[in-house]
């Protein structure tokens, strides 16, 4: 069922593999490389049609300097942080509680509620664009960070609940029964018994949701406008002036915007992979 490990294949097969791998890798990374190289090019390179050649001058400091000191980029980055962090905290807190309720208690409609959380995930979110926009306008939350945070929390909680509920289900139930026998109150069971056991799930989810929300572009464009509330993914287009698109600055801005999730990934790699596979095998 699994492919034969490479070391058990013939020598010629291995050599072909080793030769092709770097080439495919470079092809795969080509768009990213192009953006990285563009971010250190001067603007004139674009007008000269020098897209793939060697940059005519090394403008690393100039371009990135402009991104940090002469644009609204720092503000957009701050917005991203102010949107992402509360969303992560909010979703994790809510879904830990819903997961606990759905995973531990047996009551009528438990399964129905659980299915409704899951069903929410099957609604393509583009369908919700217009109603959600109208809703935020009517609630005076349009173009505010709060609006975006609330919506993200609401929408991410469904997936997180599924995740948390399954994780809690997998915990040994006798632990909870033992606590109950000891006379521990239910909220204390949640706080002192279940929550510490959920740490790996919490960490994994936090990393996952962080990257989801940080990279969100769709809702950022739909629900916010301008540097007061817009996160960095949407703010990158602010480098376009009325007539001209500043591709070199947009590239530099994109690199900067991509750094936090990349850093997050490398620092929390273990949790990230755990997050993707958790619950996949019981």
């Amino acid at each position, binding site marked *: 069922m699994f492919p034969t490990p490479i070391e058990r294949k013939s020598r010629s097969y291995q050599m072909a593999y080793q030769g092709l791998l770097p080439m495919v890798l470079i092809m795969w990374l080509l768009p990213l490389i192009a953006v990285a190289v563009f971010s250190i090019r001067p*603007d*004139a390179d*674009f*007008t*000269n*049609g020098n897209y793939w050649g060697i940059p005519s001058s090394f403008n690393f400091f100039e371009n990135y300097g402009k991104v940090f000191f002469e644009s609204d980029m720092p503000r957009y980055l701050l917005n991203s942080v102010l949107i992402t962090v509360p969303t992560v905290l909010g979703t994790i807190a809510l879904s830990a509680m819903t997961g606990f309720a759905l995973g531990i208690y047996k009551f009528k409609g438990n399964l129905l509620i659980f299915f409704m959380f899951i069903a929410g995930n099957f609604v393509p979110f583009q369908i919700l664009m217009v109603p959600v926009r109208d809703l935020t306008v009517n609630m005076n939350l349009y173009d505010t960070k709060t609006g975006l945070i609330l919506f993200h929390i609401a929408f991410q909680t469904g997936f997180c609940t599924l995740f948390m509920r399954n994780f809690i289900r997998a915990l040994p139930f006798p632990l909870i029964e033992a606590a109950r026998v000891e006379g521990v109150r239910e909220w204390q069971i949640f706080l002192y018994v279940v929550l510490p056991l959920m740490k790996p799930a919490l960490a994994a989810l936090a990393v996952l949701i962080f990257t989801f929300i940080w990279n969100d572009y769709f809702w950022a464009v739909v629900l916010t*406008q*301008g540097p007061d509330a817009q996160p960095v993914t949407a703010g990158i287009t*602010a480098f376009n*002036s*009325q*007539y*001209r*698109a500043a*591709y070199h600055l947009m590239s530099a801005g994109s690199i900067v915007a991509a750094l936090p999730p990349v850093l997050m990934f490398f620092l929390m790699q273990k949790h990230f992979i755990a997050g993707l596979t958790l619950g996949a095998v019981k």
Partner: protein
Amino acid sequence: MRSIIKASVATLTATTILAGAAFADGHAKLSGELNITSDMSNPAPRAVMERLAAQFDEKHPNLTVNLTVVDREAWKTQIRNSLSANAPDVVNWYAANRMGPYVSAGLFEDISDVWAEPAFEALASTKGAMTIDGKQWGVPYTYYQWGIYYREDIFKELGLSEPATFDEEMANCAKIVESGRKCYTIGSKFLWTAGGWFDYMNMRTNGFDFHMELAQGSVEWTDERVRETFSNWRKLIDMGAFVDDHQNYSWQEALPFMVKGEATAYLMGNFAVAPLREAGLTDDQLGFYQFPLIADVPQGEDAPTDTFHIPSGAMNKDAAREFLRFVTSEAVQSDINGNELGQLPVNSASSVADDKFITKGFDMLSNNAKGGVAQFFDRDFPAEMASAGMEGLQEFMVFPDNLDDILARLEETRARVYK
């Protein structure tokens, strides 16, 4: 209750207008607040707007000027909301058809009285663009010319001179193609560049007035005169005058052809000059000429104009009118267009920046645009017609044989859009 308030506001404004007229020479004691909502959100225009607001505030000690700058793109969707609920006193918008919907909805104030003042004779070149139903609905503050930017050095090398007529243009082009180059670069990926070509072909073939009739929907797209425009255009396409695969390039991506000398000219707005200079072309290499004559009609020119308007729901119309007088005045116009904006002043008495292309454009629009000043395809035609239209124009440039199909489709759109 509401109507009472409305009525009292109306009488109030009526009296203030009278009062304003009494001090029409611009030294009225203005008081209260003046709320300006501007879409000049790019760095340089924003600085201009902030300075204007500050200067106006200083000039009128009893008046507080509040400036709100909105993102330029966002403003395009926000304006209707903003005009109808809690309207500011002055807003930014665009001239001609683009202001049509707000004029017909009664959201813009009729300011014909301001235009009737002698000082406004200096703004004659853009008056047409501000006029709907014989009244003026706003003032312009900046515009820029369109025309053909070309490689002067290559023209010299091939022994060509600036063409004045379409025949000369085609003769030039034949020589350029022969030398292995293309006559025009264009990137039609985002469609509007093709709109520029159509504007000029149509204005030169059938005249400015016909072009406007077409824009207003009173002429059929399948009209014989429209076909003539396309057949003139086709002459160039069949010569191989345009760069290949232009439907894959944005307007900026089409610049390298010009810089490398693979194409010799670009029909574009004046904003193309800055990147071409940055790419290393000097003013000796880069020239400008007005789009050549085709039929014997007065030349119409594309010169997109940005404007200021007073919402009809504004509270301080007196101060707003004074602000419009202020931004169009000779001194302010010289200052803002000459420095930060790098465009043309709307006041003919203003001085222009010391720049080859700005001076040429100013001269062209002041003296040689007798037909009229158009605003560009996507501003003159209603939005829905413009987007269908530009798609058709791009298709025509790539597959000229589809013309009948395209025109039938555009005619269908016309019948639906202008009901």
